[in-house]
């Protein structure tokens, strides 16, 4: 059984998806989906434990060995991502029942769960897959599922946002496919380990460079790197709250994973470094993302959109870490992956609670929220503090490493700008805090109608909030794994 874990990780949610259609009653579907997700996360924990103990796992599907067969390959980086994705999915689902019930029409709820599981399976598959084509396949699965998930939003603009995401996402996927195709032409293999071995011998060819360009741009499109982020704010803003929470915590993280995987894992550090002034370009784009998105967030009135832009900004931090092109930078970036998943999941979960009670995420409607929904408001505060990077929250830890990584290369201006970026976070977080705590509630009906969010939602929310603090204080798990992963990926071959 243990030996089959890599495939189980992907196959369980994938098979669970159609089964959802057979389960009757929304509560049961939810329970079933949660169970599947829980299984997936337990598997991911087991996988991480195994990888830490025994090193990289390789699983040949159906017994066919690579390169002929399909390989599932779980190294420490993959295991780390699997853990993040599956656990986030589980926690979000755990609290999501009432919110889903309210935000999605009853007739569509079964489809929602199907799409959700498909998306989860796709994301897990991307990470677990050991060959490039499978990555593309799972990418498409997760993308298509997420278009559906976004389109399920009640707001009609959700459809439009979903459509735009569809166009952009498909372009990204196509680019990736083109990149993979070129690589196959040049090397005759799709297996990433083999690719990594063969590419150096053909690295002089234009084709490889073109492949690299397509792959990187495609991935950057998926991970919403500034200025390729335009699809994200609307998609996040108009999707059902739970979907936003899930996607924010997982989808972009997986895309970042792909960036690391392709550039450092497949193409290799030497090539990646030789091609481009990557270093400067990515640092520049990352910082530009931090500032542009944060500044936009400062002026946003819709909080969901505000946090969506903040996500773009946070991705900017990861890109900077990537661009630093060092163990320390990668580690900071990977650490932020984990931490950002935690903070954004908690913030969007809190917004789900707000939407559940208020039906609105406009800033002005939040006036006096703290008195009617104290727990939710407190969660937003802590999530926000984490976003800012206040000590004793996870945000602080990743920023600490990021600044250290910048200082390590004597990039003073980068360190300074990273810190300034946090200041902008303070501004937009503070606007919300002030509105919730210090503004008198605008309408009288809130006082009698509104109360604290349902207990399920709160439980999940506070698990995330506590995780935000816990991993800010006891940093061994994320820091340890991120460090291992960074060293692993920089250690050369996969």
């Amino acid at each position, binding site marked *: 059984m243990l030996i089959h874990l890599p495939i189980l990780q992907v196959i369980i949610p994938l098979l669970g998806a159609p089964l959802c259609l057979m389960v009757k009653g929304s509560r049961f579907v939810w329970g079933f989906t949660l169970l599947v997700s829980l299984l997936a996360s337990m598997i991911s924990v087991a996988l991480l434990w195994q990888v830490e103990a025994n090193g990289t796992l390789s699983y040949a599907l159906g017994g066919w060995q690579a390169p002929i067969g399909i390989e599932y390959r779980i190294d420490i980086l993959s295991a780390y991502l699997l853990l993040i994705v599956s656990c986030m999915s589980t926690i979000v689902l755990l609290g999501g029942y009432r919110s889903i019930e309210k935000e999605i029409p009853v007739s569509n709820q079964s489809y929602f769960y199907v799409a959700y599981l498909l998306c989860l399976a796709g994301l897990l598959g991307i990470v677990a897959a050991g060959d490039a084509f499978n990555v593309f396949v799972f990418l498409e699965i997760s993308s298509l599922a997420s278009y559906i998930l976004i389109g399920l939003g009640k707001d009609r603009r959700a459809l439009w946002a979903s459509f735009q995401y569809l166009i952009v996402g498909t372009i990204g996927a196509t680019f990736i496919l083109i990149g993979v195709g070129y690589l196959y032409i040049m090397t005759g293999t799709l297996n990433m380990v083999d690719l990594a071995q063969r590419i150096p011998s053909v690295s002089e060819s234009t084709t490889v460079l073109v492949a690299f360009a397509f792959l990187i741009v495609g991935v950057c499109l998926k991970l919403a790197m500034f200025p390729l982020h335009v699809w994200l704010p609307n998609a996040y803003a108009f999707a059902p709250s739970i979907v936003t929470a899930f996607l924010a915590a997982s989808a972009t993280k997986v895309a970042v994973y792909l960036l690391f995987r392709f550039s450092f894992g497949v193409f290799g550090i030497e090539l990646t470094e030789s091609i481009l002034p990557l270093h400067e370009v990515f640092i520049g784009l990352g910082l530009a993302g931090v500032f542009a998105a944060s500044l936009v967030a400062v002026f946003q009135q819709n909080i969901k959109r505000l946090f969506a832009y903040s996500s773009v900004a946070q991705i900017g931090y990861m890109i900077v870490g990537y661009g630093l092109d060092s163990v320390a930078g990668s580690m900071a970036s990977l650490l932020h992956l984990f931490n950002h998943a935690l903070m954004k999941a908690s913030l969007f979960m809190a917004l789900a609670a707000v939407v559940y009670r208020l039906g609105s995420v406009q800033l002005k409607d939040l006036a006096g929220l703290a008195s009617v929904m104290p727990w939710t408001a407190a969660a937003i505060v802590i999530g926000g503090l984490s976003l*800012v*990077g*206040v*000590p*004793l929250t996870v945000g602080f*830890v990743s920023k*600490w490493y990021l*600044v*250290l990584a910048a*200082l*390590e290369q004597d990039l003073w201006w980068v*360190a*300074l700008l990273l*810190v*300034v970026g*946090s*200041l902008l976070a*303070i501004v937009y977080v*503070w606007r919300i805090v*002030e509105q919730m*705590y*210090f503004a008198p509630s605008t309408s009288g009906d809130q006082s009698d109608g509104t109360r604290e969010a349902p207990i399920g939602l709160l439980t999940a929310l506070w698990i995330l909030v506590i995780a935000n603090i816990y991993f*800010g*204080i*006891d*940093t061994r798990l994320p*820091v340890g794994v991120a460090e291992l992963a960074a060293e692993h990926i920089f250690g050369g071959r996969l």
Partner: protein
Amino acid sequence: MELSTLLHATMFLPLVAVVGILLCRHQPNIRDGISLLAGVLVFACVLAIHRQFMSGGDVDITWVEILPGLSLSFSLESLGLLFALIAGFLWPVTTLYAIGYMRGHHEKNQTRFYVFFAIAIATVFAIAFSANLFTLFVFYEVLTLCTYPLVTHAGTDKAKQGGRVYLGILLSTSILMFLLAMITTWAIAGTLTFTSGGIFPEGTPAWLLSILLALYVFGIGKAAIMPFHRWLPAAMVAPTPVSALLHAVAVVKAGVFTLLKVCVFVFGLEVLPSLPATQWLIYLAGLTIVLASLVAMRKDNLKARLAYSTIGQLAYITLGALVATELAIVGSAMHIAMHAFGKITLFFCAGAIMVACHKTEVSQMAGLGKAMPVTMTAFLVASVSIIGLPPGGGTWSKWYLIWGSLEAGQQLMVVALLVSSLLNIAYLLPIPLQAFWGSSDTNVESSSQLKEAPMPSLIALVVTAFMTLVLFVYPNGVYDLANRING
């Protein structure tokens, strides 16, 4: 009791009190009693710590190690103990004062007030006993955040705007510069633990250390060095007990305390004078001293005037920290204590005048001496101490600061200190003097309306005023602690 238990007690007793305060929010008398009791207990703990420390007690507490080598830890050290003693003494006194003030002023949300007050105090103890810069930074930020509700207590637009300035400056300076400097320090030195003689390895380039020093000086916004001083006047929208304890003692002293710690235990007294930036920062401190006094003269609002006076006095301490001779450090440390008692008295008086006579402007206070002789006498005594004249405790700290500056060859700074003393006279003394002997042409209210503040407040301000005199006659306790900083 164990030292570590006592140390924890100072940090957790106020938090326990918070629970008690919340539980008894409907019985104001019990609630206020809990605050007071907690204050007295905490002070007893600090006293016990002091006794053990003097007999050679030492303690190291580590809560958690957040990153390898970076932990939340606490230890005992004389400067921190001095700070803790001051805060520990003044908390119950201020609580006593607040009881009179808040009731006399019919403030709303008194429970919230006492809760955040207690949290702030717990934070102050954590700051005082921090064993490394990281711990200090963490609680520095916590202090900023948990005093925000106190600053905006009134809930008016003005209060909110003041609060925004307060938070904006304190958070942005600390994150932008303090944090950056701290991470850089870590990157260079590999440790943040406070160590006598500094932590930077030999051979660290001076320009780098200069930048770091500037980042620290400006980043520690609570020290209110110009031009990052605006938060302090802005915070004066808070109720007076808050202004008194937090913005004359706890918060601002946390700032200069941090700065002192950084100067002595991160840079070290040998490194500091050799840096090119030090001299410029010293000039800046001198400029702050003089300019703050000039601005204070111009303020008619009493609390605003006191706020600017605080800015000037904080710059004294910053100056001493930067001059960084042993004597100057002693002077700075002593000034933390001396100024605390003087300025808290002044704020108490300002609040008493506000509660009893509803006067906030200096120009309205002529002739109040007849109605409020005790308050005005206390004001006078405290002013004398702030100016640095006998029989006020401020004499001794000024003595050491001037001595330290002279020793370091900072003649210009000596002049700044002297000029500031004279300016202090010009803006502080007229207030009580006019109160006693000025012609009260503006207020023709019947004398029956004017009376002393409520008794608890009165007792509190008499106690602190008396302490300024005690500290003149018996400065040895403070001096011994301050002198131990240099080992």
